[in-house]
């Protein structure tokens, strides 16, 4: 039952993340900057799906789940998510069908966000309502692994596909950017088909079935969840005392860490991704460890200690990431430096593409690689006005392992705040409105507060340019407020009786 629920949720997260992970390629295929309408649709696809539609999906599908049942609702979210993902992989490019391409992508991305908003609450509720009262934290912690494993799966499939399209790596990457990016989207349909098959064999939640037999299901879950003071106060407490902090810790430890390693530290594309992959692999079992532990000691303090550790250690940890990669304080081994020039003729023009790759070696084991691409014109007087320059750094094994350790520590915080939170949310609300009531604070906390972390953190670095770590103030302040509210108002309980 846990496996059947978790596989579907994992696939939904996978579907949601591949779009984000392939954002650059998708932008070049569907959202050319030269067309203002396409650029507008691109921004909407990025912001609307993640932040507006997810909470909306929580309301739509949460209501449905409390009215018709958990099983059919999260089956529906899976079909919508899988169908949308598969369809994105089939859309012709902007060059072929013009502005219809970005419109279709936007619509499908919105459907993805809507489906994700409905999936998590259903899966967590379903598993919790099957779990023995004293093992609810342990059972639901498996659902909690799925978001991180979905990210891992998306990173893994993208990396494998990038490497598999040709024996020559640069040709393979070029093919991937041209058409190979569609493969991770198309693969989704196989995963979804397996998951639908498994879910079809599942039975409805026993608690919901009991309510339905007794005719005690909610008539209007939205009204009962948000218009009744007794329940609304718990929804607000869940948001401001738990999910808001959990969201920023989740996104800082995984997405912002990766973005920081790639864009601020300038670590090579593949190294930055494999650092995250290894850290996730090592840390993921801890979701289950903390979920299980919460059955013994309660949910509250595990989550809040995770936030506390994040608040006090984010700056030193990110500072360490930066200083590992900072070549300004390292000794250059000038004699080892290399410069390679490659000319690729452009047919029938007499011009050539010139790629100059310079590699600088540093004593601490870092290589700084600069790739400068410009056009060498046949007419001697003509020069490329703005050559394309890409800089990346390659770490040696020791520094690479150190970065994995630092990201691992940050993901341990994620496992602390996220491992027990499904059980915590489920236990806050009564069965008849549980799906609706827990889904909304989760998706505002995780989707809005958490999902905006990379954007706001990056935005802060563009406003306050003097401090490369200034972006961390956003998760630190949000987690700080959440920690204070959680410590003051939340009761450290394990509800033995959610069966009413």
């Amino acid at each position, binding site marked *: 039952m846990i496996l059947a629920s978790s596989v579907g949720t994992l696939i939904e997260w996978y579907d949601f993340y591949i779009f984000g992970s392939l954002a650059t390629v998708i932008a070049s295929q569907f959202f050319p900057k030269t067309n203002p309408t396409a650029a507008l649709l691109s*921004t909407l696809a990025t912001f609307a799906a993640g932040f507006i539609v997810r909470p909306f999906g929580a309301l739509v599908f949460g209501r449905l789940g409390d009215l018709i049942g958990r099983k059919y609702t999260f089956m529906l979210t899976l079909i919508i998510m899988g169908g949308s993902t598969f369809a994105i992989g089939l859309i012709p490019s902007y060059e072929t069908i013009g502005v219809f391409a970005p419109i279709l992508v936007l619509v499908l991305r919105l459907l993805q966000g809507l489906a994700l908003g409905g999936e998590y609450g259903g899966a967590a509720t379903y598993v919790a309502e099957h779990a023995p009262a004293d093992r609810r934290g342990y059972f639901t912690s498996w659902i909690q692994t799925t978001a991180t494993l979905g990210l891992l799966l998306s990173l893994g499939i993208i990396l494998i596909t990038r490497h598999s399209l040709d024996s020559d790596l640069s040709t393979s990457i070029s093919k991937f950017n041209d058409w190979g990016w569609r493969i991770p989207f198309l693969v989704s349909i196989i995963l979804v088909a397996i998951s639908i098959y498994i879910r079809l064999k599942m039975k409805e939640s026993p608690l919901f079935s009991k309510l339905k037999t007794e005719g005690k299901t909610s008539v209007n879950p939205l009204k009962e969840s948000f218009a009744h003071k007794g329940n609304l106060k718990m929804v607000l407490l869940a948001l401001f005392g738990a999910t808001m902090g959990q969201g920023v810790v989740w996104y800082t430890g995984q997405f912002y860490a990766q973005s920081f390693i790639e864009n601020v530290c300038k670590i090579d594309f593949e190294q930055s991704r494999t650092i995250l992959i290894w850290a996730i692999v090592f840390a993921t079992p801890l979701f289950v460890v903390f979920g299980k532990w919460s059955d013994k000691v309660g949910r509250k303090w595990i989550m809040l200690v995770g936030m506390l550790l994040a608040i006090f250690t984010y700056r030193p940890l990110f500072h360490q990431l930066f200083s590992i990669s900072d070549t300004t304080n390292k000794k250059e081994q000038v004699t080892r430096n290399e410069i390679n020039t490659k000319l690729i003729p452009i047919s029938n023009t007499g011009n050539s593409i010139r790629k100059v790759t310079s590699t600088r070696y540093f004593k601490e084991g870092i290589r700084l690689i600069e790739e400068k691409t410009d056009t060498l014109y046949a007419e001697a007087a003509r020069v490329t006005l703005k050559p394309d320059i890409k800089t990346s750094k390659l770490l040696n094994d020791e520094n690479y392992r150190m970065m994995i350790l630092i990201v691992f520590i940050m993901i341990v915080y994620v496992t602390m705040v996220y491992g027990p939170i499904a059980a915590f949310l489920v236990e806050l609300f009564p069965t008849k409105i549980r799906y609706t009531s827990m889904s909304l604070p989760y998706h505002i906390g995780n989707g809005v507060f958490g999902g905006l972390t990379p954007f706001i953190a990056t935005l802060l670095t563009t*406003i306050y340019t003097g401090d490369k770590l200034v972006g961390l103030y956003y998760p630190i302040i949000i987690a700080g407020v959440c920690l204070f509210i959680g410590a003051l108002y939340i009761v450290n309980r394990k509800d033995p009786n959610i069966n009413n």
Partner: protein
Amino acid sequence: MNTIKRFAGMVWILMGPAAIFYLIKTASEEITKKPVLDTKIQWIVFVIIFIPIAIGLMIFGWFALKGAYDRLPKSSADLED
């Protein structure tokens, strides 16, 4: 403890309008600084999303001030009453 909970309620009530003011001020400054479509949409989305959340924080503060969190239900089943 209940006194602290209620007193902190006032802080949450005040934080709501402060957050809205800061958000709108920053949004208008950033849009003025870079008046391109991307910036406008980005900040409009931020404002639209965070204003209801800030209102939610004020309601949370109001509940806290009125003592709604002095005693929380021991079980979710208690909420059905």
